[in-house]
């Protein structure tokens, strides 16, 4: 499934990386720990997290993730957004908590 379908179906707000929405999504991973995503995230995964530290951009880039969904409407600092934009990393945002957005995405990808 294309990232754009997910954005539309889950009503995500796209904050950076608009140009990557045609990327294919292979699945998803939830974690708030960078080392965990480095170890277990897979290429093309959407990363669901409430972690907004600057290093999420590097992790997403290194693992070739499809994008990052920040949950609970957590504010993302301007420097993080700028870095994401320049590294072509897609950051999206939702008011829903991780459990619920994961549930909806799971149904969308496996339904």
């Amino acid at each position: 499934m294309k990232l754009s379908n997910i954005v539309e179906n889950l009503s995500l707000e796209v904050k950076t990386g608009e140009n990557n929405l045609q990327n294919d999504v292979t699945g998803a991973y939830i974690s708030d720990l960078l080392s965990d995503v480095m170890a277990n995230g897979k290429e093309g995964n959407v990363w669901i997290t409430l972690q907004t530290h600057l290093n999420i951009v590097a992790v997403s880039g290194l693992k070739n993730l499809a994008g990052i969904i920040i949950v609970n409407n957590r504010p993302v600092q301007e420097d993080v957004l700028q870095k994401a934009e320049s590294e072509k990393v897609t950051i999206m945002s939702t008011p829903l908590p991780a459990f619920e957005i994961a549930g909806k995405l799971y149904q969308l990808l496996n339904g």
Partner: protein
Amino acid sequence: MDETTEGSFQIIGGNFGNAGEASMQLKSKLTELGVNEAIIRRAAIATFEAEMNVIIYAAAGRLHYYINRDKITIKIDDMGPGIENIELAMQEGYSTAPDWVREMGWGAGMGLPNMKKNSDEFRIDSVVGEGTTIEIVINLS
């Protein structure tokens, strides 16, 4: 509860093994005194965050609580690095926690906002190079 109940704890920096001990003891004390459960939870959450801040950032600290008929007052003094910009530190998502702390599930930049959210009165004072003092007041009625 006509008299004041009080108690204090020493908190050692870096000691994750005991993290939460002070808050759990305060919680049992409030339960013993018959305080409303929702208020106990707010006090326990605010205290736990304060305790974690000492463990994460400071060499050591002291937590002191006073409970009387009207309110719970929790004071935390630490011997830590101090906070350079309190306004920034109060912003949700801002954190100066090192990587190892984030890998333990802390340092999300929610500690101070969480303390404030659960307090009726919240005061913070900090001197860089000396330490930080936090006072949390939760009304009982």
